[in-house]
């Protein structure tokens, strides 16, 4: 396949997200400006100007009319997708790390980092239909036991009944949305050994995938069953995992990673393995890798139709890959 290279960001990419129809791709990077691209030919449609810090995460509503972004400038912003206009700003006392719309787009979960005297927390905000009516009060605020550890991702569980959070403290937690109580969490032996960097839900919300850095220089990431939180599968790579994605069409899982920029000169790897690795979801075996990035891969996203995927790297490039027909015939 011939990937389409999109160099719209000057700084490393942090997150990629497709809209539900699969024709738009949103990219977030450390350069303060989330960008909107067409998902078929990679043409840039527009940029959202207004943030003053690295943009860590974004989510788009189901009708692709609203975009929410979380940024290191201690705000989360609500945008009109079409015009690029900023509709509302949620102000926090610390950098925001992860955002996710609920099913129905009337609620959003936003995580904030630890900063000075504020502990890391998970906020739930109500999103109004009409931006005029938007208020910035939190419906619910959740705190992890160790407030000093970053919560890297928080997403809604099936039917918005639960919130799943994962972060630097290596523990995945499931919270009840109504009461705010902690329902379940992973224990030491089964869970990750190092910080969890990424989380991806299955298309039908029945399971999810987490990726993590690991002390043993092999990154495990596991697939958890949401309601009961049991480990289903483990995929081993040789590199810390920064991003994970699941194909909505085939039973494939993609991991992206690489080394921290600071670690490159101290480790004896000649060139970091900057490829997106494909694994069979059920057999846990590696089926291949897609090379091309000149730096670690920080973001991965599958198009909802399963026929293309994109990866964003530390090099500032977004690479959009449309699969060849033999991808769909891969057999182990």
């Amino acid at each position, binding site marked *: 396949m011939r*990937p389409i*290279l999109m160099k719209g960001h000057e700084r490393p990419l942090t997150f990629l997200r497709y809209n539900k129809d699969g024709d738009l791709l949103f990219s977030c990077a450390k350069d303060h400006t989330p*960008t909107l691209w067409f998902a078929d030919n990679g043409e840039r449609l*527009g*940029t959202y100007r207004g943030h003053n810090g690295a943009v860590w995460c974004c989510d788009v509503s189901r009708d692709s009319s609203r975009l929410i972004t979380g940024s290191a400038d201690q705000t989360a912003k609500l945008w009109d997708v079409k015009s690029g206009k900023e509709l509302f700003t949620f102000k926090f006392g610390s950098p925001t790390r992860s955002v996710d719309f609920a099913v129905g787009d009337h609620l959003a979960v936003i995580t904030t980092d630890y900063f000075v005297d504020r502990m890391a927390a998970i906020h739930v905000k109500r999103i109004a239909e009409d931006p005029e009516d938007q208020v910035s009060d939190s419906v619910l605020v959740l705190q992890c036991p160790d407030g000093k550890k970053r919560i890297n991702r928080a997403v809604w569980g099936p039917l918005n009944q639960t919130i799943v959070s994962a972060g630097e403290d290596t523990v995945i937690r499931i919270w009840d949305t109504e009461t705010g109580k902690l329902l379940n969490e992973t224990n030491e032996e089964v869970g990750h050994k190092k910080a969890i960097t990424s989380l991806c839900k299955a298309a039908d919300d029945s399971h999810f995938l987490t990726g993590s850095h690991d002390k043993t220089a092999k990154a495990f990431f596991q697939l958890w069953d949401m309601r009961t939180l049991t480990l289903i599968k483990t995929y081993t790579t040789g590199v810390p995992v920064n991003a994970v994605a699941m194909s909505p069409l085939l039973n494939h899982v993609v991991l992206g990673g690489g080394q921290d920029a600071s670690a490159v000169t101290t480790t004896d790897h000649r060139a970091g393995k900057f490829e997106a690795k494909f694994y069979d979801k059920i057999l846990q075996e590696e089926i291949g890798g897609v090379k091309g990035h*000149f730096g670690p891969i920080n973001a991965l996203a599958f198009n909802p139709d399963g026929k293309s995927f994109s990866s964003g790297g530390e090099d500032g490039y977004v690479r959009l890959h449309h699969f060849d027909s033999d991808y769909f015939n891969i057999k182990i």
Partner: protein
Amino acid sequence: MTIDSQQQTTSKFRWGEMDEDDDFDFLLPPKQVIGPDENGLKKTIEYKFNDEGNKVKITTRTRVRKLASARLNKRAMERRNWPKFGDAANEEAGSHLTMVSTEEILLERPRAPGTKADESKATGDGLSQLGKGGAVLMVCRICHKKGDHWTSKCPYKDLAATTDAFIDKPPTGDSSTMSAAPGTGKAAYVPPSMRAGADRSAVGSDMRRRNDENSVRVTNLSEDTREPDLMELFHPFGAVTRVYVAIDQKTGVSRGFGFVNFVSREDAQRAINKLNGYGYDNLILRVEWATPRPT
């Protein structure tokens, strides 16, 4: 004329009443479609009656190209017509932010661990036998490529002449005196390459020596890079006499650098200009002269 054709077309065709000699001029041969071949070229041959009633053959050649088909729903179609905003508002449609990769990227299947180990072991052995001119692996003495061809089959056989010239070179002074000698008398045998009027010129004797001045150093190679890769990468610029990749004997991986010897200096210069900074196997290559650059 027109009446005739009308009659022809309107008369009912009853094949039982037709004589065998009747020609079936009013029947047109069927339309032929030669389907899209691997380049997407489709040829359609139709037969028609033109205005004057003559049978006409129309050949249409079309190229069928499949774009990344996006079956968009209605809202997605609307979104295609959205105006650009933000930083994109000022740019024209042909912006160079988005480009299709020049390289074909494949989903590379992982290599079975056994094969990789064997590969590196073989190259390690080959290198150690290079000095012996080993017979176990095919080592050509001219270009030193292992496992490719025997010396007699070397594609760079022209270099053999230069090696001879090199051997004769040390007595450089002698060669000039020797060429003078035949002029005086047939005192000693003078090889053809050294006779007066030999089509050698200074290039012949200097070719070997200059070869090491045409040496190009390549650094920042990936650990999988080997001699055949460098040969493939550099030979479009000109004849390459020798390629070498430094290999770590213990691990079998490339130490990240290598040397390429060109026949001509201009080719080496062009290679340096083109390949310095070239992205190869996800690393940016550094290509420069091996010795301090001569003026």
